[in-house]
């Protein structure tokens, strides 16, 4: 091994130790608890028992897991669709207004999920919500409540994730070589055509990694699905909270958490595998 190599490994040591302590140990504990068995005189006993995973392996929980993945994929897609054109045009603005926009977008991230969920609940209620505006304008006959519903869950989650999407896309779009666009335009491509055949392909890696990040972030959302959705819209994360806090079944909650983790790991793996194949 060459000397710079060793130096690089040495430099890795402090951060590796930190990651080991803060991520590996708690994760190992969750794994251990997820395969523990129930005990009469204690909450659970460590051991190797797959009954909690067997409990997961019923259609109800599998369906919940698939629903959660589907919902999060949809949120990632919508969020990227909204954020991409916005970020693209943002990069064409003057530096000063770019900064203001970014500060504004970043500030949104400081709002907690709880606050956002409850604000949307008021916004979509019958008595204080947008239903009144629709009724006043004359689109509907009288105001109505829009929660709980799938639409409300999607709207609030998209609201939560758009700022992330903008921040994830911004570096790639602002570094993009503008001369490529000029070349395309000079060769006669329309602005639309330039956008779809030049801009999107060269920023594809950013779109994909941004989408995956939003997907993984949304998988962990609890409050929005619970407050704005009916039980059929509750994600696996809501069920984990129920088991851990209300039913105090830590082993089953841990098993569900392991499943959720496996789900997001496999999505990340699949996306990066597909990405590599395209490059080859």
């Amino acid at each position, binding site marked *: 091994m060459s000397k710079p190599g060793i130096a690089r490994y040495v430099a890795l040591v402090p951060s590796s130790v930190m990651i080991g302590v803060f991520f590996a140990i708690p994760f190992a504990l969750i794994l251990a608890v997820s395969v523990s068995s129930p005990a009469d005189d*204690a909450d659970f006993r460590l051991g190797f028992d797959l009954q909690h995973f067997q409990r997961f392996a019923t259609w109800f929980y599998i369906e919940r897991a698939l629903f959660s993945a589907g919902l999060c994929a949809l949120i990632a897609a919508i969020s990227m669709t909204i954020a991409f054109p916005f970020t693209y045009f943002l990069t064409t603005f003057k530096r000063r207004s770019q900064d203001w926009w970014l500060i504004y977008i970043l500030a949104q991230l400081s709002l907690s999920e709880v606050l956002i969920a409850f604000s949307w609940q008021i916004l979509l209620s019958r008595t204080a919500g947008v239903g009144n505006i629709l009724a006043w304008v004359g689109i509907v006959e009288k105001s109505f409540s829009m929660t709980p519903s799938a639409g409300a869950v999607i709207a609030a989650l998209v609201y939560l994730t758009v700022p992330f999407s903008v921040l994830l896309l911004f570096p790639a779009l602002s570094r993009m070589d503008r001369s490529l666009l000029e070349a395309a335009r000079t060769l006669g491509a329309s602005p639309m055509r330039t956008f779809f055949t030049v801009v999107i392909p060269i920023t594809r890696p950013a779109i994909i990694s941004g989408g995956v990040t939003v997907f993984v972030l949304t998988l962990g959302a609890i409050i929005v699905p619970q407050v704005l959705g009916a039980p059929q819209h509750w994600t696996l994360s809501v069920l984990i909270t129920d088991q851990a806090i209300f039913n105090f079944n830590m082993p089953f909650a841990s098993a569900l958490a392991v499943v959720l983790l496996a789900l997001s790991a496999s999505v990340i793996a699949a996306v990066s595998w597909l990405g590599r194949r395209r490059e080859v």
Partner: protein
Amino acid sequence: MKNTLTRRRFIGTAAATGAATLAAPSILSAQGTPLRVGTYGGFFEDSFKAHIFPGFTEETGIEVDSIAVPTGETWLVQIKNAARAKTAPADVSLMAGTPRREGAKQKVFKVIDDSKIPNLSSLSDRFKDRYEDGGLYGVGGVSWYITLCTNSDVIPEAPTSWNALWDSKYEDQIGLLGLATNSFLLEVTATTHFGGTDILSTKEGISEVFDKLAEVVPNVRLWYKDEGSFQQALQQGEIPMGQYYHDVAGLAAAEGFPVVSTFPEEGGILDSGYWIVPEYAEADDEIAAFINYMSKPETQAVLARNVGTAPVVDPALTDLSPEELAAVSSDIEPIIPRYDIYGEHGPFISDRWNQMIAG
């Protein structure tokens, strides 16, 4: 599978951390040390400090150190952790149904000496929890009701039976608690349609009750976990009917909201907090004196007037007027939660419940 009222849980959670820090290093032994009493934080604790503890100190000379505790499992876990360090986080505290049963299974509560508590005779056996060998470990402290509440602007004539939950004319208009273990709807269904909660003793019986309960699902607009969501909707008439806490509904009505709480003819749901003594609590005599004081009909009347809880003693022993009594309870035989089934068939009930409410 143990749970109690969400609101009482939320009130106490923040305070609990503080309570644990306070409690950890202290081992109560010397006489003259204040008795550490745990009650649910927030309004509950404030009322106890203002209306109950001073009277107790005056009568017995024992000072009280008030501790805010969370309800349910969180508090049980703290008691268990403290026991590992051979201390008790409080000398005596309130604890609700299912976690109390779980704690008893793991024997983390001390046996209380009956002979030192003469006022126990005012309480029915229902409010005395005993180990298999007869040792007393829980004594009823406060009770509260969950009833059928309606918005009188939308539903001028409040239904008088839990059967209204099944009535198709209320389609998409009902709010119910979102967990099997805090809504006690299995008990309600069993009492309303199967002549009592005995049917819940077997898994087959529970299954049968679930089939009946599933028929209410199309009528339910909201399965709530936090009290606030439903209270708002009920007050505004957005969700005009549902199960709710009798005491809070009374407060809302007093504030002028068109909210009516009705004790259905099958009975309101009666849930209670019991006094328990964590393992390693040492002030036995002071604890007994406290439980004795709390079991006095006079003390129960003070609680009813100031906290809005229902007495755990025979109301006839108290000096509560019929109006005061009606404000906190009813003479209709209540529905008593079957805490035992959530311990025995926990995962089964939680899975069936989740599948049911997800339609």
